[in-house]
C-alpha cells in the first residue's frame, strides 16, 4: 500500500510545472481579518441547520401523506397511469420481446461490404417501435440468464426480456441491436423538438464514422439521464463491448455489434442547464477521437458567452 513509485519523469515534470507557485499575497492577513469580522456567527448556521431539518421532515411527511392519499383514492392509477417514478416499474405493461426471423431483418441490415467501402449506415426506422419518448421510465431488470435462451424468447412471456432482444441465435445471449439506442434518442429528440446536428469525428474524414449531437434542455420532464440509463439497461452486460459509466454529470455507454461489425458510443454531459448528447458509430477497429465533442462543446459555450455579453451590451 505504501509503496512509493519513483516515476522520476513525472516528478520532474510536476516540479517544473509548479516551480513558480505564487506566494501568499502580503495583504492576505488584513483581508482575512476583514472577512472574519464580517462573518456571521455560527449560531445563524445552526439556526439554518435546524430550519432545514424541520423543512425536510415536513416534506417527507407531506410526501408520505400524498402517496397514501393517492393510493386510497386512485387504486386504478397505480396499475395503469404512466408515472415518471422509477419505483413503479413493475406496474406497467412492458414491451414484449418479439422473435424476428432473419428475412425480416434483412431489409434493415446493410451488407458488411458497404460499410467496408466507407459508407455510413443509413438505418431504416425500426418496425418495432422502441419505447416512446413519453413512456414512463423503467428501471433495470436483470435478464434471467439461467433459463434456456430459446425458451425465453419463444414463450414470449418473460417480462424481463426487452424488445431489444430481437433475434434468436444459438449464441450465449440473444442478439440485441445497438442501433435501437439511436432510434430511441431520435424519437425522444423529435418529441421534444430537439434538432440533430452532425459532427465529424474522424481525421482524415471517414464517412463510415457517423457522429451526431443533440442539445437537450436539462429538464425534469425529459429526464434524459434516467432515460439513458434505462436504455443502457435494455442490454445484457455480456453484450460485446458493453461499457457503461455514469454519474449525475455524465453518461458514457459503449457497445459493439459483432454482426454488422460496428462499434457504438454514446456520451451525455450536463452543462449549464443543458445536456449535450453525442452519438457515434463506426466500423470496428476504426479509432474515433473525442476531440470533435470537445470542440463542439467549446464552440457552444463560446457562443453562449458571446450571446450573453452581446445582450448585456
Amino acid at each position, binding site marked *: 500500500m*505504501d509503496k512509493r513509485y519513483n*516515476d522520476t519523469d513525472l516528478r520532474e515534470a510536476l516540479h517544473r510545472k509548479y516551480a513558480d507557485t505564487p506566494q501568499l499575497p502580503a495583504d492576505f492577513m488584513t483581508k482575512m*481579518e476583514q472577512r472574519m469580522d464580517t462573518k456571521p456567527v455560527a449560531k445563524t448556521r445552526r439556526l439554518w441547520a435546524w430550519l432545514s431539518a424541520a423543512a425536510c421532515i415536513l416534506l417527507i411527511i407531506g410526501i408520505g401523506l400524498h402517496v397514501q392519499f393517492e393510493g386510497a383514492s386512485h387504486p386504478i392509477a397505480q396499475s395503469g397511469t404512466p408515472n415518471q417514478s422509477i419505483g413503479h416499474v413493475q406496474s406497467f405493461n412492458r414491451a414484449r420481446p418479439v422473435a424476428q426471423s432473419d428475412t425480416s431483418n434483412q431489409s434493415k441490415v446493410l451488407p458488411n461490404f458497404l460499410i467496408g467501402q466507407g459508407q455510413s449506415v443509413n438505418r431504416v426506422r425500426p418496425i418495432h417501435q422502441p419505447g416512446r419518448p413519453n413512456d414512463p421510465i423503467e428501471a433495470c431488470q436483470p435478464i434471467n440468464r439461467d433459463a434456456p435462451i430459446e425458451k425465453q424468447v419463444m414463450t414470449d412471456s418473460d417480462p424481463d426480456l426487452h424488445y431489444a432482444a430481437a433475434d434468436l441465435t444459438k449464441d450465449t445471449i440473444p442478439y440485441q441491436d445497438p442501433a435501437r439506442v439511436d432510434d430511441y434518442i431520435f424519437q425522444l429528440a423529435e418529441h421534444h423538438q430537439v434538432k440533430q446536428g452532425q459532427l465529424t469525428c474522424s481525421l482524415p474524414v471517414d464517412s463510415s464514422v457517423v457522429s451526431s449531437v443533440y442539445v437537450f434542455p436539462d429538464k425534469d420532464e425529459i429526464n434524459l439521464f434516467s432515460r439513458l440509463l434505462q436504455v443502457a439497461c435494455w442490454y445484457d452486460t455480456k453484450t460485446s463491448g458493453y461499457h457503461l459509466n455514469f454519474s449525475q454529470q455524465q453518461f458514457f455507454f459503449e457497445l459493439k455489434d459483432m454482426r454488422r461489425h460496428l462499434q457504438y458510443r454514446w456520451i451525455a454531459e450536463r452543462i449549464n442547464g443543458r445536456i449535450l448528447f453525442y452519438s457515434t458509430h463506426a466500423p470496428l477497429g476504426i479509432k474515433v477521437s473525442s476531440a470533435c465533442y470537445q470542440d463542439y462543446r467549446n464552440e457552444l459555450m463560446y457562443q453562449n458567452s458571446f450571446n450573453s455579453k452581446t445582450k448585456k451590451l
Partner: protein
Amino acid sequence: MSDLTETEIVEAVRRGRREGQTAMVGRYAQLVFAMIARQVPDTLDAEELTQDTFLRAFDHIDSYDAHKASLSTWLCRIAYRLTLDFLKRRRPVIVSIEDSKVWQTDISDEQLEAELSTGREERIEQLQEVMDDLPDDERMLLTLYYFEDRPLTEIAYTTGIEAKPLANRLYRTRKKIFQKLKMKDEK
C-alpha cells in the same frame, strides 16, 4: 508568528477566540494557499478559496480529530474539497473516450514505472502537457503524491477516499498518462 502549540490553537478556535484563529491563519495560510494556487491559476480566486478554507475550519473545528490527522492535513482536506468544487463549477469534468481504454492497456507496474522514469527531456516536456489534460482530481492526486511527497494514507485522509481505492486510482492515472504519451508518440 504565534507561540501557541497546535493543540492550543485548536482549543482557542473552539472557544471562538480571535488569537487562536489568527494563529491558525498565520501558521498554515501559506501551505493552504500554495496547495490551492497550484490548481487554481487565478491568484485572487486562490486567495479567496484560502480564506474560505479557514472560515470553514473555524465553523467546523468541533469535527477536527487530532488522532486522525494533523491540523495542517485537516486544513488541506477542506482546501481540497473547496478547490475541487470550485474547479467543477468553472469547467465541467469531461471523460475522454480514451479514458475508457485505460484498463485495456496491459502493462505491469514495473514496466509502467520504467516508462515514467526515462529521464528523457522530451518525455518530461510531454508529461507537462499531458498533466493539463487530466481531470482535476487526478491532477491533484499526482501533485499531492509526487510534488508534495505525501504518503498515500495522508492523501487518503485529504481526499476522503480510502487508501486502497486511492492506490488503484493512482495506478489508473499513471496508466492513463502512459496511454496518452503513447498516443502522442504515435502521432
